[in-house]
């Protein structure tokens, strides 16, 4: 065991280093900047043998990773907020290309107006891009998830976004057990690209594709655009098992107890279940403790894996609950909280009609204290018990 007290950003950079990433490309944006600063120190000091491409924009940062990964190099980038949104075209392109890129998204609110502080609007708004999205609740999970992410990505040929809350985790020191490089080497084999540029046969990567199937020059029928999209979706859905298996393997090897898709806190006998993603979910654990002292049976369900969405797992965790309350740091304007929508959709398919309230909370870095969560839960319970469902989406503290 080698425990160090480090920030979330240091944990992310160390994770990438331990995975021996071969190409790094990034552009500065608060609060992810120190990830890439730390990595450039590793590279310049000779501690990490990687090509570091200091690009002129986030769009180019992800482009570099895309082309480098296509050629066969393990690639890493990190960004936040507007940086991620500026990449958006490439975020789609990376997934469409089925490339195992790992990107840390240090969650930050989105302008206008400007904010540099935390919420999860940035990564949650990238929901439909075809990336695996994993959310961390503390700094230990950040380093562990980066390492797992490469194995998940390179097994399923899908890009993985490792998301964690800006400042709350990125700039907060916590004790982190750093996995040994030789153990990670055993866990994570070298990246094997599915394309080869070294053979005599030339390849044309990502040309224009018809909507329908078409024969190649040898008479073999190849996929059309629709089939390729279906395969991407199927790969995402089946990556659930990959994520679970790799998490189990990691837990055994490195003596961890972290969850693969969702985690639960005191949910067994709970009547009320709070749902959250990232650090707001770990804050909710404290809120649940406070409520338990008042004899209210509250548990917490944390969503670690947002894409693929762990529908079955969430349904089975919520089966016997009486009330569900989602706390989330994002909103789908014109409707409701993004996470709340996803949970409701899963419940509908699972035939569950449990009352669900949701809170849009902590946008642009607004403080969310466990005691405030607890008092809002109590208020929501009163309304639900009175069957007052007029206002199911609430703005926390507004």
């Amino acid at each position, binding site marked *: 065991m080698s425990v160090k007290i480090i920030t979330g950003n240091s944990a992310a950079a160390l994770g990438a280093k331990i995975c021996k990433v071969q190409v790094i490309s990034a552009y500065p944006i608060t609060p992810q900047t120190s990830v890439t600063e730390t990595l450039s120190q590793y590279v310049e000091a000779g501690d990490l043998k990687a090509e570091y491409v200091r690009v002129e924009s986030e769009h180019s940062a992800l482009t570099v990773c895309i082309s480098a990964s296509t050629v066969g190099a393990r690639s890493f980038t990190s960004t936040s907020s507007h940086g991620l949104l500026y990449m958006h075209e490439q975020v789609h392109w990376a997934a469409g290309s089925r490339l195992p890129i790992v990107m840390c998204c240090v969650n930050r609110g989105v302008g206008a107006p400007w904010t540099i502080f935390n919420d999860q609007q940035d990564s949650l708004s990238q929901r439909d891009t075809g990336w695996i999205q994993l959310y961390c609740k503390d700094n230990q999970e950040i380093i562990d998830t980066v390492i797992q992410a490469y194995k998940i990505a390179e097994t399923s040929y899908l890009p993985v976004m490792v998301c964690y809350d800006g400042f709350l985790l990125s700039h907060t020191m916590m004790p982190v057990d750093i996995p040994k490089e030789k153990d990670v080497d055993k866990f994570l084999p070298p990246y094997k690209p599915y394309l080869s*540029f070294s053979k005599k046969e030339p390849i044309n990567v990502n040309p224009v594709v018809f909507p329908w199937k078409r024969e190649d020059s040898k008479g073999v029928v190849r996929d059309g655009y629709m089939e390729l999209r279906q395969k991407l979706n199927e790969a995402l859905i089946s990556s659930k098992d990959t994520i679970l298996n790799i998490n189990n393997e990691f837990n055994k090897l490195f003596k961890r107890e972290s969850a693969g898709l969702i985690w639960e806190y005191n949910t067994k006998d709970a009547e009320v279940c709070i749902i959250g993603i990232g650090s707001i979910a770990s804050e909710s654990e404290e809120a649940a403790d406070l409520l338990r002292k008042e004899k209210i049976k509250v548990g917490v369900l944390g969503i670690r894996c947002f894409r693929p969405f762990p529908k079955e797992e969430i349904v089975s965790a919520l089966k016997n609950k009486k009330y569900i309350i989602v706390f989330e740091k994002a909103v789908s304007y014109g409707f409701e909280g993004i996470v709340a929508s996803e949970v409701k959709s899963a419940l509908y398919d699972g035939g569950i009609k449990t009352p669900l309230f949701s809170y849009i909370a902590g946008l642009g870095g607004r403080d969310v204290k466990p005691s405030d969560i607890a008092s809002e839960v109590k208020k929501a319970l009163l309304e639900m018990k009175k069957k007052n469902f007029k206002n199911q989406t609430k703005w926390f503290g507004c």
Partner: protein
Amino acid sequence: MPDKLFKIEKKEYLLPGNRACQGCSLALAYRYVLKALGKNVIYTLPASCLTVVYGLYPISSVDASLINCTFPSCAASASGIVAALKALKRDKDTNVVAIAGDGGTFDIGMQALSGALERQTNFIFICYNNEGYMNTGTQRSSATPLGAITSTTPFLTKLEPQKDIIKIVEAHNVSYVASSSPAYPKDLYDKLVKAKGIKGSKFMHILTPCPPGWGFPINHSVKIAKLSVDCGVSVLFEIEDGKFQFTGRSKFLAEKNKKKDVTEYIKAQKRFDKISDSQIEDFQKWVDMRWKNYLHRNNAS
């Protein structure tokens, strides 16, 4: 020049059945680009006419490896390939070539291009310039010349002269800059063979006349390309470590003082149907100014 033509690589990389329009001078130019650069090249290409020339999956008309990339990202994509090859220790035997149209160079690709040049990325960037968004149906780009009708300048014509891309490229620390024409394949070929042997960022500009976009008969592509050189709209030159030299036909024109005026070139194309006399005058001034500057630089070195 023509006596050496036999030295050009015999292998054909651009295969029959490609999807270029009839009379496409890009196809002609690209045939020689591929021959000059040979094997062990990874090309990268953003959305453009050339994407179409390559054909539709799962059939490809080019016997060379290509990574397609998004419209703004060509030079960044090349940077990624270069970085990966270096990281994988395969950079000694593989060349990286970015090729984009004028949209992917002058306009949406400019930021990535500037970044890659500033980083002195070891690659060749080729801009084939057909002076507009021809693949999407002839819209105005910043490479469209003054007085040209496009589908987004339909009545008034383009009211501004084009960007001087060479000046922009030269403002970076590039090892080699050249301009050539599909009408002079040997000139094009030799420059690319040279560029291949130079380290750092190399930039190649090729003015590629476009029959449907410019409005001339499909069998006049080479004629128009030659005219463009004769009147100094397209100039054959190379700049090595800042030293400017005319080459081929342009060298001849400069030495004999035989550069034509632009009238014949303009009259031969329907896109200039609405150009006014004063616009022709301004067009001529723009060409002459640049030519004078090139002459000055040529004589200085």
